[in-house]
């Protein structure tokens, strides 16, 4: 909880700046199917102090979208809005606008947040396998959906672990504790756990920031592979990482979406001054 509280504190005292609308690559939008539509969204942890201001964006199917920006710019907050993890904080909520996933307003009262989260999985910054066996960790999501048939679980566990590139490393010790793995392996286990539920979208909140460079590389490769099957939104501090893994990048600053475009364009030829300042390392 503490991680986004700090975001909010940084944000509170500052006035919104810049009215420029985000520029989008119109042709790409036409060609691709939109799965997430963020529509003029304002968000507040404490009513009255918005930390996200009038955000609008479309996220396309089968792409990796990266959110970048300095600390406290609201990128993690927006990510958590996408599967309503912010519901856990009392009083926090959208104050304006709506978010549509697969065409449905996810803050609509008829939306069951549990179902939503089955469709929109999340991988966290700090890898956190449950203190259970590797097998049970991956099977967890299915078990809570009431799947208890051994054969189904076995198959799902195997395919998820294979997809996460962990199968060869752990297939002989599925019954040992998930906590016994190395950091990178634990994070991949968490990814396997997430994809076992077969979500449409995977949100990743700085998945590599707690990992060493080698593990980071492995995870990045994994992300590029996963995009075949899933739509991925990733928050990252690391701009190189964004260039390496993402198709599109959105740059946030002080709760506003400054610019969103194809990654190569953002990093080579940003249309906004602020973006350029940030990626060239002048601040942030």
């Amino acid at each position, binding site marked *: 909880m503490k991680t986004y509280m700090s975001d909010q504190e940084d944000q509170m005292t500052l006035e919104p700046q810049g009215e420029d609308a985000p520029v989008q690559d119109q042709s790409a939008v036409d060609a691709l199917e939109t799965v997430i539509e963020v529509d003029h969204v304002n968000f507040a942890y404490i009513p009255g102090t918005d930390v996200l201001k009038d955000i609008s964006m479309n996220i396309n199917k089968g792409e990796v979208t990266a959110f970048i920006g300095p600390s406290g710019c609201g990128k993690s907050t927006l990510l958590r809005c996408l599967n309503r993890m912010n519901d856990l904080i009392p009083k926090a909520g959208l104050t304006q606008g709506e978010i*549509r996933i697969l065409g449905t*307003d996810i803050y609509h009262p*008829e939306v*069951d947040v*549990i179902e939503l989260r089955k469709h929109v999985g999340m991988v966290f910054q700090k890898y956190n396998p449950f203190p259970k066996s590797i097998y049970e960790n991956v099977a967890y999501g299915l078990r809570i959906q009431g799947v208890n048939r051994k054969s189904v679980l076995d198959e799902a566990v195997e395919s998820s672990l294979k997809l996460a590139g962990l199968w060869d490393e752990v297939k002989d010790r599925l019954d040992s504790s998930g906590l016994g793995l190395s950091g990178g392996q634990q994070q991949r286990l968490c990814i396997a756990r997430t994809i076992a539920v077969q979500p449409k979208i995977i949100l990743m909140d700085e998945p590599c920031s707690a990992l060493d460079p080698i593990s980071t590389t492995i995870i990045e490769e994994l992300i590029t592979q996963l995009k075949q099957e899933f739509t991925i939104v990733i928050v990252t501090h690391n701009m190189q990482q964004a260039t390496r893994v993402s198709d599109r990048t959105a740059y946030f600053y002080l709760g506003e979406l400054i610019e969103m475009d194809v990654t190569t364009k953002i990093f080579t030829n940003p249309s906004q001054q602020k973006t350029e300042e940030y990626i060239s390392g002048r601040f942030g």
Partner: protein
Amino acid sequence: MHDIAKDQPVKKGQNPFATKAVKLKRRDRTISVALGAATYFILACTLYIFADITFKGIPVVFKTEAPFVNFEFFTKSPETLMTFETEGGETYKMNFSEYSQFKRDSPDVNIVEEHSHAYSGGGIFGPLVGTALLTIICITVALFVGLATAIFLNEYATKGRFMDSIRLAIMNLAGVPSIVFGLFGLMFFCLFIPVVTSEPLERSFLAIPLGGGSYFSFEGWGTCMLAGGFTLAVMILPVVIAACEESLKAIPMGFREASLALGATKWQTISKAVLPYAFPGMLTASILGITRVAGETAPIMFTAALAHKDKLPWQDVPTTPGSNFVAQAAEWGTGFLSQSVQAMPYHIYTVAARIPQSEYTKPMQYGSVFVFMVLVMTFAALSIFLRIRYRKKLKW
């Protein structure tokens, strides 16, 4: 981008996030309700016990006419209650002392039926005084030792075997049953601890002559409030240490560092920069201690408490007339501390279990329990309140 009005319902069948696991949700809600019910059942039981004792106790302690409080109940010590009937058909109910007076005053009254109810008359002054004295002794000792231990653990000790074993000992001490402390107190404080005396008792383990006719005799203090207070102090030591440590931990390291950096010695730092700020914690510790100690019966059963005692502890303390004032005061003090006392919990045990029950014993039973509970609960509430407040303030 297309706008959909917020209040327009999502069409059924089109909403991929519509609730599917209805059964699961219902089960969830049922379990939540069951858990809540268990919680509130516990609270309801508590409330019932309080209500029962309060409703039956209030009529004893309060009166319907002025001055509304039954002062006699608070200012007299327990006595035997006499109920009797004279030949004239009148029934009387009075304390034993009044009864003897009555018989002396009217020797010609013929008493036909007479019943005595032990401990059911008078009031609870003696037990209240005894409990207060025991508590004061206990808290003084426990706070002294507890604070010193906490200072050692928090300020001096470095990680190592010594500190580990102290912590282990404290933890184990916390789990020892109170009756075992009673046994220990009896063996150690009542029968063993050395005293300086002019004539050692026969039971003395070892009497070392000091010259001048006095001996250093391992004979213990006997059954007295000092022994009881010390026994209780040993028992609550873990609680007091924990509370004191918590209060010391709450003082920012910066205070100490600043003081040390100014060239103060360790002790100066502790006495000037640490202890003054630990006061609220010490207050909490002592109140917490009082709450636990006041209600304990088992440790004082053999070490300090009597079921019946005519005199209050300060009455009839022997002194040698003629000696100088200091000597007399010292003698009085020692004599006073070696008095046995009545105590509230022991008194309640006596009236609840050791006398035959009748309608005449009820007022004393419920009155005592009510007063006792109100006292202990006030301290308990205070300690909980202080702790919550203190924890809130803890973020310096």
